[in-house]
């Protein structure tokens, strides 16, 4: 009999604590259009799979009357569960408990689940919804943040780390998501900034709304801090599940292999690209024409759209795609697109995902703003990331491959394993007009009709150099292929490189141009 009493007592305790900040606070949370921490976890994970740890943890604060307050679970829920049957570790900050503020025990719960994720080599998902540091706990909450950042860094490149911003995430709190691999934001719900609108108004007198300063769209489009933008929390969870299906559990594993499927994109691949190198097209159509089921999972769709990154499958295996996008800014490399591509390449390399690069770019974006923004050091990141990567690296040159861009976009010279080019490829030191103006400067100047002479010389240059055969003659390009052969050639290349070993000198770590 006494056993039953104990069990009933446990149930009662659980029920009380599982309510977090209580019914009123939950109502408030819902009124803001937000789900509760617990319902978020349950919506994201497989049914019945969530197992909670540290439900009965209480806070440690003793000052400012805090000793009289109860904070259930100390404002964060942690545990393990599965997504499509794959295990994950998860934490979700509970805004209904003291605004999800981070105190010592709150942080200790998060670091506990992080340690667990790292030891078990499974992905970590963090749902952020917090007013920030719990001021009453002073330096203890700062210590908590620091210990989270440290673990984010140590786990980086070992297990996938995913951050979901579903509420405020301000001040020091933003740095944990920033250290993780993928950041998800939801329109009107996510708010991220170092100093909020109030501080900015007090110090500077500048007025700006939270949404304009650090809303979801800002981070998805302008800053590039976010990788996925959703209209609703449920859409966001679908994106996370989709991502999880593409990536491995840890850096010693490969991503799950799915049954191979033919692309369902019906348009003829030759008809996607206009022959005039000055005309744009959507390079994502080329990716869709190549990948299994035409299923391309794009990352950072809104940020620096002049380069496209994302995952697709070839023969059921996850592949990372990097493609210049002529539809935006002519597909140039600039500071933002270099950052975007370089980080993704390093992600793929860390998690054993082969990289396919589709190249069609006229060069780097000219301009004082780019030069002064450090396009040299940002652009260098792409060179570094490609050179450093030891996963299979395959390039297809679709059209333009000019100058520094040709080198940067996974050229043979940076260690590409396979270099394919379409017959439309133009591999040259620069565009024909520019090259002709320099090489034939004298002839053009001295001609009776300089314009006619220039046109003639441009034509001559195009015929002789603006093609893939000069590079093919040197072995810089392995094969010039018909566009319709692309998928077969890529499938073959991936198969051949499945046991690739690329040894590098031992070192503590490189010094990438961060």
């Amino acid at each position, binding site marked *: 009999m006494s056993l039953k009493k104990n069990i009933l007592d446990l149930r009662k305790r659980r029920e009380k604590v599982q309510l977090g900040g209580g019914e009123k606070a939950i109502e408030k949370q819902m009124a803001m259009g937000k789900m509760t921490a617990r319902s978020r976890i349950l919506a994201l994970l497989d049914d019945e799979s969530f197992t909670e740890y540290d439900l009965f943890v209480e806070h440690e604060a003793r000052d400012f009357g805090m000793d009289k307050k109860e904070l259930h679970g100390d404002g964060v829920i942690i545990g393990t569960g599965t997504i499509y049957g794959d295990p994950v570790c998860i934490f979700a900050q509970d805004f209904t408990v003291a605004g999800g503020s981070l105190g010592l025990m709150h942080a200790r719960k998060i670091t506990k689940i992080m340690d667990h994720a790292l030891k078990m080599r499974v992905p970590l998902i963090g749902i952020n919804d917090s007013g920030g540091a719990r001021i009453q706990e002073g330096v203890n909450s700062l210590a908590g943040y620091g210990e989270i950042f440290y673990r984010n860094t140590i786990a980086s490149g070992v297990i996938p780390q995913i951050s979901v911003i579903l509420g405020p995430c301000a001040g020091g709190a933003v740095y944990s998501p920033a250290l993780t691999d993928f950041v998800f934001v939801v329109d009107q719900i996510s708010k991220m900034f170092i100093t909020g609108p109030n501080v900015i108004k007090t110090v500077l007198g500048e007025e700006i709304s939270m949404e304009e300063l650090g809303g979801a769209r800002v981070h998805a489009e302008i800053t590039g801090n976010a990788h996925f933008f959703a209209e609703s929390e449920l859409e966001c969870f679908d994106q996370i599940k989709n991502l999880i299906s593409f990536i491995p559990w840890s850096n010693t594993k490969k991503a799950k292999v799915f049954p191979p499927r033919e692309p369902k994109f019906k348009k003829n691949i030759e008809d996607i690209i206009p022959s005039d190198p000055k005309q*744009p097209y959507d390079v994502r159509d080329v990716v869709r024409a190549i990948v299994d089921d035409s299923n391309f999972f794009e990352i950072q769709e809104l940020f620096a759209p002049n380069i496209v990154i994302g995952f697709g499958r070839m023969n059921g295996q996850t592949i990372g795609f990097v493609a210049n996008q*002529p*539809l935006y800014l002519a597909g140039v490399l600039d500071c933002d697109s270099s950052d975007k591509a370089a980080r993704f390449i390093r992600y793929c390399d860390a998690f054993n995902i082969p990289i396919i690069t589709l190249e069609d770019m006229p*060069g780097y974006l000219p301009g*004082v*703003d780019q030069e002064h923004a450090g396009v040299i050091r940002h652009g260098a990141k792409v060179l570094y990331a490609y050179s450093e990567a030891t996963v299979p690296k395959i390039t297809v040159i679709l059209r333009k491959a000019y100058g520094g861009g040709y080198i940067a976009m996974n050229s043979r010279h940076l260690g590409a394993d396979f270099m394919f080019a379409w017959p439309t490829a133009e591999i040259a030191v*620069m565009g024909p007009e520019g090259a002709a103006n320099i090489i034939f400067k004298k002839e053009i100047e001295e001609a009776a009709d300089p314009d006619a002479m220039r046109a003639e010389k441009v034509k001559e240059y195009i015929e002789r150099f603006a093609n893939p055969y000069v590079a093919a003659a040197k072995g810089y390009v392995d094969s010039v292929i018909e566009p319709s052969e692309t998928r077969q050639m890529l499938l073959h290349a991936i198969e051949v490189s499945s046991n690739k070993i690329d040894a590098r000198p031992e070192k503590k770590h490189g010094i990438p141009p961060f």
Partner: protein
Amino acid sequence: MKNKKLNLVDFPILSRKYKTLLTTKHHSRKPYVAPNLNEIKSYIPGTIIKMKAKVGAKLKEGDIILIQEAMKMMNQIKMPFDGKIKEILVSEGERILKGHLMVIIE
């Protein structure tokens, strides 16, 4: 293709113009303006605490023109070279943004 629907513009890269779309961020770039060494601008947002020099004063390189408080620091704004204060465009207690024109010297 679907060029008619898209708002394509001519985008010059080196000696060629490409048809393409622009991004919001590209639109909101600020054009470059060469700095005028006679204009002393704030390099950080803050508050003017004290004016140390008057219009017409002849100062040596390194002399303090004014004190600007920013991020809890009292920053000394100094003469970049020997010269004269031509115009003062801020007053004590004024809160200014970064890049605000404070003083013109000659």
